[in-house]
């Protein structure tokens, strides 16, 4: 597909309602475009693009990072059109939600991160920021045609096919965790940098003073693997103390729970083994 000039009209709405109206009008003959970096890679491969492109770049209120307090709760609101690079370098994100910063650092390369957006990464459904966000119990806000709603990212990913929405932001709550916490994000790419993911593994695990695990979030994704939490494995770990028998059970449970894709580069087995290895190694770090 020639990418020099697209056979499409570009719309640049300035508010959410206008953007939504355009989408309703043109429906399948249109798509929203955030940074456009991922979409263009797909179009270059031959994935057809629609004749109406609705750019979100000028829509008011979609860009920006706000660290807010409401009562006793403190949370971060990240506008969907905020550039990935801005998220990565934001001091509050680096300090309090560092997993997200780590995740973004491994997405593509600097020039792409200066154009790509967090909303684009999440709305794509397979973005590498998602596993990190899942382990941090992130929420998304979206416009459903009438109002702005908020729901857990986890839930939204599982139910999004039922309704079309316009993602407006990502929300991270500030939690007080356990006495000892280990958090990790590992993207296993096909190359040291600037590569699609073979498998992405993220986790936040906390244990109390007695050494009992009191908080677990484990998420996988990457490449064409649908990002999701490993809930059976999480259940296995909760209220337990780390010991060799537990780790062996965890290893087996992960192998059984995770059903990754297989492709011409790596098999599903490889992806399972690597995921299990990474999680076990992090658990033993927490132990040792």
């Amino acid at each position: 597909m020639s990418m020099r000039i697209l056979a499409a009209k570009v719309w640049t709405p300035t508010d959410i309602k206008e953007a939504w109206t355009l989408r309703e009008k043109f429906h399948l003959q249109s798509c929203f475009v955030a940074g456009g970096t991922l979409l263009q890679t797909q179009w270059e491969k031959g994935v057809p693009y629609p004749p109406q492109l609705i750019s979100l770049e000028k829509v008011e209120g979609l860009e920006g990072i706000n660290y807010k307090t409401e009562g006793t709760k403190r949370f971060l609101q990240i506008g969907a059109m905020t550039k990935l690079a801005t998220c990565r370098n934001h001091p509050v994100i680096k300090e309090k939600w560092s997993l997200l910063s780590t995740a973004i650092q491994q997405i593509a390369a600097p020039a792409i991160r200066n154009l790509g957006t967090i909303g684009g990464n999440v709305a794509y459904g397979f973005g590498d920021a998602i596993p990190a966000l899942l382990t941090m119990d992130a929420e998304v806000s979206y416009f459903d045609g009438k109002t702005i709603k908020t729901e857990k990212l986890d839930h939204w990913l599982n139910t999004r096919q039922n309704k079309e929405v316009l993602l407006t932001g990502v929300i991270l709550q500030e939690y007080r965790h356990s006495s000892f916490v280990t958090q990790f994000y590992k993207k296993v790419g096909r190359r040291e940098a600037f590569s699609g993911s073979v498998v992405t593994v993220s986790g936040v695990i906390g244990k109390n003073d007695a050494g009992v695990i009191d908080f677990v979030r484990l998420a996988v994704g990457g490449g064409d693997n649908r990002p999701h939490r490993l809930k059976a494995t999480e259940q296995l770990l909760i209220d337990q103390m780390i010991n060799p028998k537990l780790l062996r059970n965890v290893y087996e449970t992960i192998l059984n729970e995770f059903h990754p894709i297989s492709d011409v580069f790596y098999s599903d087995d490889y992806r399972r083994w690597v995921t299990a290895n990474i999680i076990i190694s992090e658990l033993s770090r927490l132990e040792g």
Partner: protein
Amino acid sequence: MKFTYSNNLQRSLIRPDGVDKVTGKLKFLTDLSFPNMLHGKILRSAYPHAKIISISTKKAEELPGVRAVITSKDVPGLNRFGLIFPDQPVLCDERVRYVGDAVAAVAAETEEIAEKALQLIEVEYEPLPVIDDPEQALLPSAPRLHPDGNILHQASYQKGNVEEAFQTCDVIVEETYELPRQMHAYMETEGGVIVPEKDGRITVYVGTQHGYKDRFQLARILNVPESKIRVVSSPIGGSFGGKDELNIQPYGALLAIKTGCPVKIHQSRRESVRSGLKRHPMKITMKTGASRNGKILAHQVRIIADTGAYATLGPAVLDFAVEHATGPYIIPNVHVEGLSVYTNNGVAGEFRGFGGNQVTFALEGQIDRLAVKLGICPMELRKRNLRKADDLGPVGQEIAPTDGAAQVLKAISQSPLLNKKESIEWGEGTDRWKKTGIGVAIAMHGGGLGYGRLDPAGGRLSLNEDGKIEIAFGFEEFGQGLLFVIEQLVIKEIGCSANDIKITIGDTDRVPRSGSSTASRGTSMVWHALQRMKDPFKKRLLEKASQCTGVPATQLYLGPIGIWSCGLNSEPLITYQQIAHETKDDPIQIETEFHFPTTPHSIPGGHYLYSFAACAVKVEVDELTGIVRVKNLEQAVAAGPVIYPTGYLGQIEGGSVMALGYTLLEEAIMEKGKYVTENFDSYLIPTINDIPHSMDITAIEELYEGDPYGPRGVGEIGTVAVAPAIAKAIYDAIGLWVTKLPVSREEIVKAVNQREMREWLTTKL
């Protein structure tokens, strides 16, 4: 993290093309634009193997803005091209044999219109069964891809009696090695502009590694005398062997002639992946036997190369692989058989290393396996079988005596990497799930095209009308630093300064024939040409200067700006400009023509001048993910004197990283004859994050006593020994022998699983 990019070579000299490259001023041939220029696009086959039933270009021709559409009927001369024998259709008429086969081409006012026109060309195909594996192609039931069958070329070498010799061996190792399809991945894709001139000639501004050969091939296709074609072939944004063969030139030329307008074609990366050459995938089975005391007695090799749809340089690559199958070792009983087989996969051809990379990976793998089985240190095993300086070459031919093999082996043995005083414990990595290993390998590589091949060389040295000392070669600059080499050699041999020199290359109207800019021959040929030209040139200049000034020639010498007279002077006696004025009607010009040095033994393809390298690497294997990281890399290279230190270093470092990609990252995957990895998001070459923390290069400049052949080229030698060194290092780290490239992480994790992981889970914690 610390970088150490150390080297023993003095640097800090600026290349002639440097300023234009760092300012973006340099116009590559794909940057050129001409008035009334049209844009060309090539329609390539929709199938890896099919009959063409019909082609209809009517709708495309009728599209506004389209100026010409061509098919096979528009080819006035030979509808074929190929460096050795022309078997690849310019435009297919009956049959397509791979997805890069050209079926039609369009010239239009804009690239967008040309693209649209391609979509309007209607081709009716009858798909045929796809042969995507050489062994499948060899079956009697396989469809014949070419009139003479599916074997492009056979090559073999025999010495002694391997079958008998194996009986006497104490230890035998047998292994099959699989080498992948690598892509050159030059940053500038194929492209340029073909311009029809007012005088009826055409100028072809398209990068190639052999302007005169392109001219020859195009003349044959266009059915015109060569004098009607001018090829401007430099500068090029990377080639590595991939732009020696013709690529877009025929289409641009045909369209330019048909429309009477300049036609620009610049392939997208996707088009380049689809149609461009690749390295030969090879399956190499080796059986090697030795006596208990480490003497290798028998070596049996079978090579099957997947040459793809057409010949190009396939036969020469196979010959090279067969020749290098014993490397720098003297083995009394050898039997090497090679087959280059046609398939419907992408066309394989010339690629930096030229068959040496594949066969050396296998050979060094055999040596390392033997060493383990025999319980002999691998360096020692190599030493015991290493060629001596005056031994015959690998196929029994006389070669220029060289001690290079021993030199590089000795140099690498002194590497700190092989010195166990490392702070990190043997076998342990930076954390408990990483293992470290060290590996060493050596390589021998023949330069030039080999016996019996047309390997002409030549040059021209003249004082031009502007008073510049003009040095001209029919070579091309594609990053290897040839321009600097030429400049430095002229300064050294003539005595003038850089400002006095004009270098002319890459233009068939202005340069003599020098042969191709390939096979590590460029530097060598420049040196040889200058040795032949310098004395006659200096003599003529001094004579003229003497005539003009009355000072005897014996008291004069060439220096910066002009001719100086002996003694303390602050300026020349007469400038080059002044002499040029005096010689306007009879300019001083010296030309030379000769042949690349070859062996006197008539062994087709046998080489004469060899260079050597030894590579040591330290790798870290991550047991959790199977990821292999090269932490340190060292190479010792014996290729004669260093002319341009920065260039030499750049070639070895660049070659090392290209080889690292070959070993760990790169494979142009094909399924059923179609490319799976179609762009740089799926075909992965090393980024700055993939390179070792340190690369240490040592150049061994001493040649054998009395060697008159001067510097060898180093374009390829840095790429050959890296892969086997990495494979050995992996074995050293985790006990797994890698036989297939690129290294499979999955295989590593599986091996770790089987040997350790289960226990690790239960016992270590």
